[in-house]
């Protein structure tokens, strides 16, 4: 396994666990270390079991491990649920003010040489002049000491976090110091991350950012001017982020009464010439499907994000999944072309939003972006987004100035590519009807057999153009390897991390990430499959939706597969072990 240092902070919701995670990640970055933060929480406001896991390394990565080095337990349940995840020589920190460890647990931990450190967080917070809500800051001080890092880095970040409430800074720093010093007196054998890792000062310039925020920045940068949405986990934080940040750029952020409205507003706004989008989860997208079909028929651009979580029905609202690929590819009545794409990491979450709008406008069709809870709500360390890479392409729009006055324009003109240049209502060019009924070039309703077939063929022609022009899937790792894996979406990073690890052990793997899933580039994919002795798909769903789609498009069976559908993302250990098992097959 690649050397990582893993800490899990767990307790009841409302104990400030998310803030602790943010402070830790920012402090680690300041200390020149790379971290990845992953949260687990139930669908409750308060109470329930909250988890924040931070993994630390000196090399970029973005995945989670099963084994912990440190468990910070803020309540008794945390010990019961997670103590077995602690590896040998790990640390258990627990809040003695909240509960006591029973002998059985103590013995079990000691046989694994786990150091047990009891802290009375409430007493320590009070003695530092703080209140109960500052227990999490005390615990951060203690953790920082276990890390063996410089306290000044942590207190600097705490000062920054509380900069809007300067009065709170001194007491929070005191709380952190109290936690830090408590470890010094109780235990001398602290683990210095500086000994395990080589710190990299470059990381200090990186961002600590969640997937939804990154996507939100992509939405702003892409020139989206209307964002309409109905809250639904895991994309609710995108709505709240844009309501706060997008509006600073004048973007209209409209919380709609339902997903049907959100989607129709996007179509209406795009029809009248601005960029608009909405986001939801699978359940909300169910309500948008008729509008998706409308976008297909009107040939009006439409962009939606589907942040996946496990279904069916309400499913596991706050957990992760990749079960909505079929939904994205097949949703909507009738047949019409569409594009389905899935960003794989934080950089793609930012960059691909503009691309989604470019494609929607260029081909005048709906574009769906599949993300998931893991991508949307994990906290990434990442280089500052390259804004130079963001470019806008609005497709063919006829303006009053460049319209040829002698020409009769038809909105749904038959063309070679199937794309008919559009112009915006209000332009002094020519009237037309954008008609949800089958229509003529002018947009008038028709039931004529020939006209109906010709218009359906015109729309579907765009799929050919899209397929020719979409980027091919990317192949990572050793492209010539005997073993190939194919995956999509947020699995990208755990697979890349596993490949990097196995490479150091001499195992070579080629990994194809399909970012643009529909229309599927079946020739490139087919060639990749045929070039491998062993081929497998990795997906967070039960049926193997990508695998089935590939079979349907290429006629090729992919026998090996790693699938998961319990709401958890793939852990690095699972992927490493699976890929090793594929190697055994080659022998």
């Amino acid at each position, binding site marked *: 396994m690649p050397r990582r240092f893993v800490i899990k902070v767990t307790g009841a919701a409302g104990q400030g666990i998310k803030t602790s995670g943010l402070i830790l990640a920012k402090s680690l970055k300041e200390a020149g270390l790379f971290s990845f933060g992953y949260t687990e929480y139930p669908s409750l406001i308060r109470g329930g079991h909250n988890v924040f896991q931070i993994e630390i390394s000196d090399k970029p990565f973005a995945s989670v491990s099963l084994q912990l080095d440190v468990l910070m337990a803020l309540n008794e349940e945390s010990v019961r649920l997670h103590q077995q995840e602690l590896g040998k020589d790990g640390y258990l920190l627990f809040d003695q003010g909240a509960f006591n460890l029973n002998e059985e647990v103590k013995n079990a931990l000691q046989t694994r040489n786990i150091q047990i450190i009891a802290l009375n967080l409430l007493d320590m917070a009070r003695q530092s002049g703080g209140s109960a809500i500052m227990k999490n800051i005390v615990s951060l001080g203690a953790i920082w000491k276990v890390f063996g890092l410089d306290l000044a880095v942590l207190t600097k970040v705490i000062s920054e976090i509380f900069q809007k409430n300067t009065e709170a800074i001194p007491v929070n720093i005191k709380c952190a110091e109290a936690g830090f010093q408590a470890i010094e007196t109780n235990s001398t054998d602290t683990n210095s991350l500086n000994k395990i890792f080589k710190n990299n000062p470059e990381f200090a310039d990186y961002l600590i950012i969640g997937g939804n925020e990154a996507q939100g920045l992509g939405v702003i940068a892409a020139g989206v001017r209307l964002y309409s949405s109905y809250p639904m986990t895991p994309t609710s934080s995108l709505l709240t982020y844009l309501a706060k940040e997008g509006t600073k750029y004048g973007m209209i952020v409209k919380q709609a009464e339902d997903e049907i409205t959100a989607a129709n507003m996007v179509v*209406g706004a795009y029809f*009248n*010439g*601005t960029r608009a989008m909405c986001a939801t989860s699978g359940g909300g997208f169910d309500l948008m499907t008729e509008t998706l079909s409308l976008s297909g028929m009107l040939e009006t651009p439409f962009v939606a994000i589907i942040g996946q979580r496990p279904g069916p029905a309400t499913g596991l609202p706050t957990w992760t999944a990749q079960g909505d690929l079929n939904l994205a590819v097949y949703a909507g009545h009738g047949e019409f072309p569409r594009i389905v794409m899935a960003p794989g990491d934080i950089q793609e979450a930012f960059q691909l939003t503009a691309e989604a709008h470019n494609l929607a406008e260029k081909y005048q069709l709906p574009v769906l972006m599949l993300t998931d809870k893991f991508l949307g709500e994990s906290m990434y360390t990442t280089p500052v987004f390259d804004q130079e890479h963001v470019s806008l392409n609005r497709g063919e729009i006829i303006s009053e100035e460049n319209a040829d006055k002698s020409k009769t324009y038809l909105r749904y003109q038959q063309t070679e590519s199937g794309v008919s240049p559009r112009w915006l209502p209000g332009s002094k060019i020519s009237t037309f009807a954008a008609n949800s009924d089958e*229509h003529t070039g002018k947009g008038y309703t028709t039931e004529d057999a020939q006209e109906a077939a010709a218009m359906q063929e015109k729309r579907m022609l765009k799929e050919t153009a899209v397929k020719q022009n979409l980027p091919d899937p990317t192949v990572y790792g050793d492209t010539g390897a005997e073993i190939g894996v194919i995956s999509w979406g947020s699995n990208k990073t755990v697979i890349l991390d596993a490949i990097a690890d196995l490479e150091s052990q001499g195992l070579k793997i080629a990994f194809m990430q399909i970012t643009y899933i529909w229309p599927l580039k079946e020739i490139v994919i087919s060639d990749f499959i045929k070039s491998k002795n062993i081929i497998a798909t990795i997906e967070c769903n039960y049926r193997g939706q990508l695998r089935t789609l590939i079979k349907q498009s290429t006629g090729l069976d992919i026998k090996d597969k790693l699938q998961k559908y319990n709401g958890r993302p793939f852990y690095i250990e699972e992927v490493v072990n699976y890929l090793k098992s594929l190697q055994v097959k080659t022998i």
Partner: protein
Amino acid sequence: MQEPNKVTSPLTQNNSVKNPALQDFQSPVMPTWCPGCGDYAIWSCLKQALVQQNLGPMDVLLCFDIGCNGNMVDKINAYCLKGLHGRVIPLAAGAHLANKNLPIIAIAGDGGTFDEGIQHFIHALRSNYRITFILHNNCDFGLTTGQATPTTPEGQKMNSSPYGVMETRLNPLQLALSAGATFIARGFTGNMSQLTELIKSGMQHNGFSYIDVLQHCPTYNDFQDLKWTKDRVYNVQEDGSYPNTRENAYKITDYSNEKIPTGILYQDKASVSFLDKLTYRQNYQGILKDEVKKYDITDSLKEFS
């Protein structure tokens, strides 16, 4: 609350045709409505209202729902948009937000609006988008051959209700008032000059203007024919003493009254439309349509560094 943005009217733009006339709106497609259908009158009044406001075919966006009303989409030469059943309001609202300078009229029937689109109606009234909503209220589903809608009287036998409608009759005007309507009017296809004026007044209103049009359906509605309605309607604006209050409008629109009021039943003259309430757009006087460009997000990155 901060001062709202300067009130903007979409009716002050450059027009596509000098002195537009009715024939400018003439489409080569002939109407398909039944003989005697109220849609002919609404169709004519709509064109009249546009012409009288000096608006040409390329100066407006007409949005249609599904139903006999929606068949108007190609019977009028203008920029037209036809969406899905019950969904015309959010479609028109999105279009309006993108280009507030383009006057937008949304047209729908009582079936789509008060059955599966009722949430859109209620929330658009709450949002108070500056669009005009013309409701073809004929108390039945015409295009699907005469089923009941929420405005069909209770007990009325319809082809899907052979034992009579079991449900209470919905009162759209009272519903609109309780949802915070800032402009409600009722027209009647038997009085075209009044209906034309109502459409014009609605288009001048800075907010969501709801014009409920009592419309005869000669094929499926024999319980409220033209004469039935004509005998009951009166114009509230007739003598100039109409009390313009929500309470009064609520009272006179009740189904228990023998007479049916028409005219502008309530208007909040100080109405502030959705866009004019967006204080965060005070520095953006233009329209969203013209604001699509790449935005530099450097300032927003600070929070994450």
